[in-house]
């Protein structure tokens, strides 16, 4: 069983932006969702775990080893798919994977080749393995990203906003791929898409403005909201009035009308209809600190 423990992690950038403040997390094998809006500090947290950045204070322990002091320990067991990455021009997928495999320490040529070919199959890229990655489409490129993250013997995989920019079909395919690999190792999925976390992760955390807001089992969070979410369709003009009166979780346009969801222990003034709480409600109520 792998474990990642983060304690009191704090990072302030030179320009004064507090990217992480006192983050505390414990993660074990399985898919872990890291949810937060843009600019919440997700990428900073990821980069810090990976060792691309140094925190100001706090600790990160992977399998009890302090990886801030010894980043090599985690790097040697890590697969990382950054939010946005480029590739060398004119280099074929196979060659690039081979390069990264060598860097990761797959020293045996035969087993290295087998693993690369297997990964190319797994990510459906076999046919294009001899084409330059720079000519790949967005989805293929992300799949290549997963393939490279799986090279070697990763005990922890970190993927940062992997489905951003993918069409729904590619996104599905990608998520299937992710769910396949998440057994017996830690997979941290950082995203701002609640749906991805709902589909893939059992454990999750929500961060915003560098602070950890909520951490735990997503089903339990939904349970907690049971009976406390109410909906109503209103006119767009009425929104301001409702905002003053109720705790609005989220709004959604539907054919010109506005559907609002409200957080309340009881049906307020009986003008709302009850509705099943979902993870998105957990997310928004947490962000707005309604609970």
């Amino acid at each position, binding site marked *: 069983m792998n474990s990642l423990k983060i304690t009191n992690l704090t990072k302030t950038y030179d320009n004064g932006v507090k990217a992480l403040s006192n983050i505390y997390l414990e993660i074990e094998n399985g898919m872990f969702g890291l949810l937060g809006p843009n600019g919440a500090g997700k990428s900073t947290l990821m980069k810090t775990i990976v060792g691309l950045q140094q925190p100001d204070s706090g600790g990160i322990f992977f399998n009890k080893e302090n990886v801030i002091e010894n980043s090599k320990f985690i790097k040697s067991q890590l697969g990382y798919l*950054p939010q946005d*990455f480029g590739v060398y021009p*004119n280099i074929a997928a196979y060659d690039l994977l081979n390069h990264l495999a060598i860097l990761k320490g797959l020293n045996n040529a035969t087993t290295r080749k*087998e693993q690369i070919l297997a990964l190319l199959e797994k990510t459906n890229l076999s046919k294009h393995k001899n084409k330059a990655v720079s000519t790949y489409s967005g989805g293929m490129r992300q799949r290549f990203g997963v393939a490279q993250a799986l090279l070697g*013997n990763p005990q922890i995989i970190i993927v940062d906003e992997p489905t951003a920019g993918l069409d729904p079909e590619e996104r599905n395919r990608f998520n299937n791929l992710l769910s396949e690999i998440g057994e017996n190792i830690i997979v941290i999925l950082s995203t701002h898409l609640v749906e991805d976390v709902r589909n893939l992760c059992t454990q999750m955390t929500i961060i915003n403005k560098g602070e950890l807001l909520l951490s735990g089992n997503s089903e339990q969070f939904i349970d907690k909201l049971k009976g406390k979410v109410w909906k109503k369709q209103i006119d767009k003009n009425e929104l301001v009035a409702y905002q003053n009166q109720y705790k609005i979780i989220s709004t959604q346009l539907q054919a010109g009308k506005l559907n609002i969801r409200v957080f309340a222990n009881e049906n307020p003034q009986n003008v709302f209809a009850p509705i099943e709480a979902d993870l998105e409600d957990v997310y928004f109520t947490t962000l707005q600190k309604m609970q």
Partner: protein
Amino acid sequence: MLRHLLLFEWKFYSRKISFYLILLAFFGLGLMTGTSAVISFPNITYNSPYAINFFLGLFSLASLFPIVLMATQSLLREKDNRFEQILYATPITIRNYFISRFSLVFGFAVFTFLLFLIGYIIGHLLTINNSEQWGVFHLSYYLHCFFTIVLPNIFLCTVIVCCTAWFTKNKMFVYLSGLGIYILYMVVSIFSNSPFMAGSVPVSESTMNLSAKIDLFGMAAFFEQTQYWTALQRNTTVLQLSGNFLWNRIGVILLAFLLLIAAYKFFKFKLTNQQKKKIAIANDQETKKYVYNKTATQLSGKGYFFSTILSFLKIDLKSTIKSIPFVVLVVLTLFMLGMEMHGAINGGIRLPQYFVTTALMINAISATLPILLLLAMLFYGSELVWKSKSLNFSSIENSISFSNVALFISKFVTLFFISILLIFLCIVLGVLFQFIYNYPIIDFKAYLSLFYYIGLPASLCGLLIIALQYIFKNKYIALIIAAAFLVITNSLLGNAFGFSHPLTRFANFMPDVYSDIAGFSYLSKAFIIKMFYSFSFTLLLSVIAILLFEKSLKKVKIKSFRLLLLPLTFLFSSGFLIFKNYHKASKTDQLTWQQQYEEKYKSYQKKPQPSITDVKTNINLFPQKNSYNVTGNFIMVNKTKFEISEILINTSNEIIWNVITSSKLILEKKDTEFGQYLFKTKQKMLPNDSIVVSFDFEYEIHPINNHQSFNAIVENGAFMRISNYFPKIGYNLENEIGDELERKNRKMPLQDVLTKVDAPLENPYNYEFINFDAIISTAANQTAISVGDLVNSYSKNNRNYFHYKAENIPFRFAVSTATYAIQKSNYNDISIELLYEPKHNQNITHLMKSIKNTMQYCETNFGKYPYKTIRFAEISSFTKGFAATAYPASVFINEKQFHVKLDQEEGLDIINELAAHELSHQWWGNAQLNSDYREGSGVLTETLAQYTKLMIYKKEHGKDKMMEMVKLYQNMYDSEKAFSGEEALFNSNPGNANVIYNKGLVNMYELYLLIGEEKINLALKNLLAKYKFPLQPATTLNLVEELKLVSDKSESIKIEVLFKK
């Protein structure tokens, strides 16, 4: 709108340090150029329009640097930062965008140049004084040049570079467009006899005319317009906007505008589509053959370390070499080299084609490739280091814990391979040229040595650049620092600015001095030491760079500084070795030495001293060791009317003196600084008394110090005018500072004026001739050549001995040694010997024939040849300063003039010229017509030799060919007369080569037209009969007199005019 755009740009750049660095660099460069007289032209003032045009024109080329830098930063910024879509969607008009960006690049280039100009002017104003080197300061000279030459140049360069940026949207192409302009310029320079090019040779008028029209920088047009200007004109006249210069300037501006308009018309706000070849998304499920298993990894061990290096190398090399820009770089390199090779093969109008030997190709490569390699190293060095980051691949790579040392090494190895690849391609081109020009004798070993002599310095520069990138962690700052460092320590420019001590030189390439006979000789030894020194320095920087990897200085553990110890030890030990062995005095020190010598010993000039009459010596040559030793003795006789009790013997400081002694002398004082030995005689030396002095000295070339060019004891084809290093008596005039201005600056009195042509001469005149008797030994496989008759030769103890004897020759003798092939023949009872490098046998028959013809002509017309033998010996190009040189019974020819491809149809027959000119010196000069050094004495040797050559040339090749030659010499005279001055022949300075050779030949031709060959020859025969040794020597006045005696009275005035005007 436009104003806003420009303001925005200013905000962007004003925050960049590199921006200010460039401005500062240009101002500093201007100041340095203005204050230091790096290049000076004789008779031309530093602030003359000519010098200003020269420097500003030359440095307008440097504007390419800011233009290219600005174009990549400013024109491709949107693309780099993926801002294109937003910018192009704004209502900004193409016109505004176009104008603002173009004027920004152009304005910046002009601004930087103005800073250079201001620095240059300030430099001039700071150093200007009343001496003849400076004219009156005219701001208009600078501005005229700026507006006519510089501004159009910058404009065109900016247009070309910007158009490239807009059309390709690729940084590398922008760099290459800059490089392309540079190469184009160099190519035109090669063909237009630009003084910028080393070893420039005169070119034909049509070539000059064409280059004047097409040289984008207008320099060829400048040289064309001013080539026949006098010194006064060059000092006071600005360039006239007329002729080719006008057309060139109009053409350049027009071309620039056309390109600009075309660019404007075709310019669209269009996105760069880098992924044109995007492949279709494949979603069909593939059948699985492999199973994904996690595979154990190992991140340590040597195997892992090396495979990391190899993997990075593969990726970097693949992505570099496959890229189009690299291909373009290769094409440009080969194009420029091809041009250089072509230029090297064609020796210009003065010389016929050279044989396309491996040596010629190697020198062409050594002359061209280093600068291109340096640029490639600078570019790729900084690109490779930041490649992963700029491609945004680093976040993946850096999440893996590979060794930084391996990364560092891999970047270096990539650069190494790039340089090896370029060298390899150049060699292929060289071999190809050898086949095309039908000289397929390929010396592969010599070619391969280029990987060492060019590849090693290039790699060291690459390593330095990478280390600086990692140390400064900022691409552009590191790039600028590396470029500045290399300009100072690696280029000739730094040399000119005073960074010439080998300790201040970094990874200098082997110069283009490869000799077909001697290879690189001792320079390869110097190369090792210098490379080791440079290597230690780069090693030091590399260790620092690796220590600072991802860390700041404070976090580096004190313990790790111990790693610096090894490179520091290397650096100091090799540096100490260089420092200890380098003895070359700086120019100022040398001049001070000369001044002190003169002040200390000038008094001996007038003191009666004995003359050397006999030299008997053993010279042992060790070519493989680059050394020789000499023992012997000389007899000196008191030929004066006075008693002598004090004798000053002066020796050269170049060599090591073991002994100078005599039983009749007591050493009074030994002045090692000036090599002076002051002796007292034990008994007063009465007139006609003689004393024997014995001596013993040795010499070895110390690689770091280079050799004096007449002391080239190299492995093969060595040549030494060894008399220069024999002890001499009395004051040595040659040690005096000859430069009048330098004397003035040092507040020294004027030098003694040259003896007037009509000054009286003691009678009988003391020729100071000697009897020469030398036994010369050399290596077992070599033959030693000296002067006079060979009386004996034998082998002993695995060495060859040659005994030479000559009576009554000037104190001027030489030796050469080489593995010679020998061809013998004879003319009447005179034996002719040709000694040459066995490979250089192509012209032997022709040379033999030319010698016989000359011998016949001279004996028939002037008198008997004075020796039993005449020999012509080839020597290596390590001896510089003459094409051929004549000694009693021996002529030495430099391989560069010897091994040429004679085309009977076209071009001059240089072998015939050399044979005729040099052989005739056995009559004109040497032991026959040997005048004292005075006004016009050069005419009696060189001009007469030129005349003889001309007549023999006529006899061999006909009058048309003779006319060609006359015209050539006329041109050479005209184009050099501004520097040499226009002296009359009869009282010309013997050192004025342009007058005594070029004008001399032309005027002798006029004389030939006037009175005819027969009468001239008769006059010369009479001159010899009356004035040759041991009779009183002749002056030019005697020559004119003899000419008048044999011709009609009506022609007298015209003869006078030819010599006195």
